[in-house]
């Protein structure tokens, strides 16, 4: 929709230009999707020319402005499955970005699930300089991140070891191809298991098990490490059901990866 209070677009925009009333603009699919009467300027990052996906020795660097379509075509199976977990269709993928999904910090954000499950890190840039933050720490709650005013997300890094690991993926929704009510990813790590819970919870939870866990251990860990009130209450599924799906999928993932 039209953002009628916006009086200026800065393109390409740089760190240091941000002032109150500004928003960093990537694809625009989130910004333009609801009224934003507090905004007066858009700082466009898509014209900065960041290469979308860079393969390096130590893993994959994904620019914040990499579109979902570009990521889905990058040839990584888990990334593609996470793209398909978007409620949005392939047409939105052509515009929406990896960085935009991380910064929106919605429980159902599948790029958050991907990044958290693979021990990804976010590179943040601000007037004070750069810093890196684990994806699981980047999102702090529903719609909340560690980004400070004027700081931007430059890229997501996925480490090579995690990218090469065996993973298992489960997603549940109220509707076929619907918005995720629970999205869990398991990853074999050394002799153990890293189990990532997203969508069901207000922020990502990563449960690491040094030895491959039994069914009972996983269920107890879920109960003990994720407080009841951390399950999402909204129109996309009741918290009781989300907790149940979390337990169900966790066990399915455990079984799949134990084979």
């Amino acid at each position: 929709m039209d953002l009628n209070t916006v009086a200026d677009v800065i393109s390409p925009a740089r760190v240091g230009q941000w002032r109150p009333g500004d928003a960093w603009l990537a694809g625009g699919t989130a910004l333009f999707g609801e009224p934003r009467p507090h905004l007066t300027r858009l700082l466009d990052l898509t014209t900065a020319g960041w290469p979308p996906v860079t393969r390096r020795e130590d893993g994959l660097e994904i620019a914040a402005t990499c579109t979902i379509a570009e990521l889905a075509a990058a040839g990584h199976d888990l990334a593609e499955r996470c793209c398909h977990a978007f409620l949005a269709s392939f047409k939105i993928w052509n515009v929406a970005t990896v960085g935009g999904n991380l910064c929106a910090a919605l429980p159902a954000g599948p790029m958050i699930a991907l990044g958290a499950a693979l021990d990804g890190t976010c590179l943040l840039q601000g007037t004070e300089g750069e810093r890196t933050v684990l994806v699981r720490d980047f999102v702090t709650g529903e719609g909340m991140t560690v980004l400070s005013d004027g700081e931007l997300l430059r890229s997501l890094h996925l480490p090579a070891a995690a990218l090469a690991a065996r993973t298992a993926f489960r997603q549940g929704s109220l509707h076929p191809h619907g918005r995720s009510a629970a999205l869990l990813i398991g990853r074999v790590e050394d002799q153990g298991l890293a189990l990532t819970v997203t969508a069901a919870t207000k922020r990502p939870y990563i449960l690491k098990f040094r030895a491959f866990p039994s069914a009972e251990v996983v269920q107890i860990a879920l109960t003990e490490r994720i407080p009841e009130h951390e399950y999402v209450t909204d129109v996309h599924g009741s918290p009781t059901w989300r907790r149940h799906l979390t337990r169900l999928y966790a066990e399915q993932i455990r079984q799949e990866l134990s084979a």
Partner: protein
Amino acid sequence: MRINGEEHDRAPRPGQCLRTYLREEGCFGVKKGCDTGDCGACTVHVDGVPVHSCLYPAHRAQRRSVTTIEGLKGHPAQQAFLAAQGFQCGFCTAGLIMTTAALTEDQRADLPRTFKGNLCRCTGYRAIADAVAGVVNATTPEPGTAVGANLGAPAGPQVVTGTARYTFDLEVPGVLHMKVLRSPHAHARIAAISVEAALSVPGVEAILTHADAPAKLFSTAQHENAAEDPADTRVLDDVVRFAGQRVAAVVATSEAAAEAGCRAITVEYEVLPSVLDPEAAMAPGAPQLHAAPNNVVGELHATLGDVDAGFAEADAVYEQTFTTARVQHASLETHGAVGWLDDDGRLVIRTSSQTPFLTRRAVAELYDLPADRVRVLTGRVGGGFGGKQEMLVEDLVALAVLRLRRPVKLEYTRAEQFTSATVRHPFKVTLRAGARRDGTLTAMRLRVVADTGAYGNHGPSVMYHGCHESLAVYRCPNKSTDAYAVYTNTVPSGAFRGYGLGQVSFAVESVLDELARQLGIDPVHMREINIVRAGEPLLAPGDHVDDLSIASFGLDQCLSHIRTASSATDPAPPGWLVGDGMAIAMIAAGPPGGHFADATVTVLPGGRYEIAVGTAEFGNGSTTVHAQIAADALGTTPDRICVRQSDTDVVRHDTGAFASTGVVVAGRAVLDAATALHEKILAAGDESIEGMTAAGHFAGSPRSVAFNAQWFRVAVDPQTGEIRILRSVHSADAGTVMNPLQCRGQIEGGVAQALGATLAEHVDIDATGQVTTTGFRQYHLPTFADVPRTEVHFAATTDAIGPLGAKSMSESPFNPVAPALANALRDATGVRFTALPFTRDRVWEGLQRARRSP
């Protein structure tokens, strides 16, 4: 920006999205369905890549090449949608075609996933699947064989090229934009409104508040008999009774200025106690919304026979309470109107309405204008479903036009559709019913509480209608009804496909299913034992207009179609629970108390004919049928017939396109006019017939009834609550089926819309009365993936009343769907679900509860 091959130099505004820029440049085929990226009606290609233009920053497209539907120029996808008739109202069609045109083979092979970004509210998606698959459904009939043929909609070529003109698809020079400031409170008195700052906003031309509005009370609901609906509404009121109600309107030279004006208004509210639940609203001491005592705006208390004696005779008795949710119509075209004064100073309003003539009457009365000083017309209407049998914008647009004497438009946002239009009445229905060992019903006791929200609108009429055909379809001798339509401080309820019957039938058909189970009788047989038959009276408690009769009876055939369907088997996933369920429905072909249509048919030069008829076209397909009727009566082909419609200048009167009347009332007027013209032509001999004209009129009485039956086989995953529909079968008694392709489309669309209400949709209201589901991301409409293919069967009947033996078939397919699904769910799981909708979380929780307390 290069648009469809042509350079456009004008720079977009900084925060503008591509959708509005393209429309400003004249590409009216680019539609606003949601403006939030969810519906896909605005799909265009940027450098060949399909995107939702409502989310695409316009400035980014400046050095790119954009293709809209107007630029496709004969693409095979357009031809495919036309040949398959892959549309009804057509508002979503440009977006679907632009999407289809961009698909890879892999994407075509997985349409449920591919089309998750395209919402169609009309078709139920079967026709769209046909279009993508290249199925040809439309035929070209020979002279005299149009009725009964699968003729395509006359507007089809315009729909698939993006040239069909909906409400706002025209340029109105100098048009001003209106935005409405809405109440944040569920109930409040407006103590003061400060508009000075808002008036100082550059571009703001006027601000309208309750001080500017007439004192007159009216109902936004529209019926031929205006007294049917409670007059309790002001154009702008000094008391607001729901969060989302109009407080002030700002008229400005741009939407941006109008929005800024709204933000600059300060309102001092004296907050009043509010009540959100209808039972609480009826209790002593509850906050009062209007003059109606106990907030009861309509009630019905009546008995037939002796209900207590009936229960004493019963071998099996079952009682249960059922609830239904608020549902939004979600027509892809939002409410909206644009008004101006014509050269003669006459007020003209172009609006998205099902009732142009009644709206003209209402506007004229409100502003003390003679009817001939007001003209109301529609373009093609982008979906209605009852939601546009209501005056929700025209009164305010008229006020602004009359005040400023300049053109003014008001276009709802999608969020306003949820907060400030109308919803399907939420019902609470308690039914106790008894039957003898042989299945014969002995007594039915019905209690209904319908929540009309903050205003009466259609409340009393929906309540009456809901309690009629749902009971009258059974010949139980002892029936009693206690029903209430109740005010609450919530978004008003209004007319919605089925008009109360769906809600009450959910209870009636669920209870019949339980009685059949108790007695060990097959549910189809249970109906066969108890349904009314041809020649029998239609009886329900209360005073009901006696012009209704069974002028053709095909319910027995519908039931035998259902019985045949259930004899086949379907594979289900291992571990899932499988069950079957069915339900029936009956509906009057037209409303009680009169529904009028005038039509004229005129000979044009070159052997062509023009039908003039008042009724609106919003995908219901009545225009197609009118052309078919006239073609056969005149011995010609439908391509020689053009239809002028839904304009108060075109004919004397038309009550409107509602209450399932497009074929049986307006169609009858067209038949009479065309037949009369044909007789005149025959009598003319060698005389010139050009300009010769004849008129037809029908008053909508007497009325017949139509029947529907729905059957589902479902599989339920007890681990997640997921319901998968393995098979869906619908049988309909529509009398003579005038256009099988269209009629099937109406049924498929009705089933799909009802499945939305059954499995997904609910408008939620929080503890303060605010609607919290204000977009398609929170309010899930059925997508391609949600809707199964429904087998459609027709009963072979010919009606004694309807034109050429036809009956209505537009609202009624909705009505048996929820109970049929509930009965299948009961059969599969052993649990009776009583609250709509059956979302996966609720189903899983219901199964858990049942497991804990067997």
